[in-house]
């Protein structure tokens, strides 16, 4: 029992981690950052949105609609739990080298 959430595959974890660094990010910004295709990102986001970890909104911007993404409090909590589990795993090899600094997303990004 590692405590790792199987839903948070590396790509989904990257999405949540990226969104934990801002209040809102545009779909295109996340896609550019991850360097993945639209369908891949869309699939990952659907899985996260189904669990209410990421909020997906369409915002009208002039003549165009932009899709914005926001990590929810539930998503931030899931990310924190997953990161804690990963840190526990990584600490097993801590004596071998320098450990990574903690990544604890803060809640309340409204």
């Amino acid at each position: 029992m590692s405590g790792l959430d199987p839903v948070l595959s590396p790509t989904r974890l990257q999405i949540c981690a990226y969104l934990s660094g801002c209040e809102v990010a545009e779909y295109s910004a996340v896609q550019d950052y991850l360097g993945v295709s639209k369908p891949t990102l869309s699939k990952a986001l659907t899985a996260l949105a189904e669990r209410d970890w990421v909020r997906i909104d369409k915002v009208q911007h002039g003549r165009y609609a932009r899709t914005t993404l926001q990590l929810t409090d539930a998503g931030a909590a899931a990310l924190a739990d997953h990161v804690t589990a990963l840190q526990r795993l990584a600490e097993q090899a801590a004596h071998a080298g320098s450990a990574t600094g903690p990544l604890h997303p803060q809640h309340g990004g409204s």
Partner: protein
Amino acid sequence: MDDIDPEEARRILDEAQRARQDAERPAQSVALHLVSALAVGLGVVALAQLPGHRVGHLVMLAIGVVLIAVGGTLPVLARRRAGVRGYRGVTRNDHLVFLVVAAVLVVCALQATSTTAIIYLVLGLAAAVEYFLVLRRHPSVVRR
């Protein structure tokens, strides 16, 4: 998921850490950061200049406030243009600290003397260097 070894876990953690930092401070041009840091540094210096001339000092104070505001806002606007908005947690607090420090400097500069002008000169230089390092996410100033 359960078959992740410690090295793999560390690599995933590093990537997640980097992702968050890249959202907080996306890669931006050195020129933008230089201009921002210079604006902040010159702004701090300007706050306390011409202490003997009432009107001149107030003008310099206003110029200083504008320069600091420009220096603080430019990277945020560039980040917003890249499609990333708002901050959370520690980074939000960093911005609050920036505002409080700027406010304190402005208030202290209201009663500036020629000595204060020299102190602000040094402070301006330090602020420019420090702010540039923060914007460039230099290891010496990144605490996460």
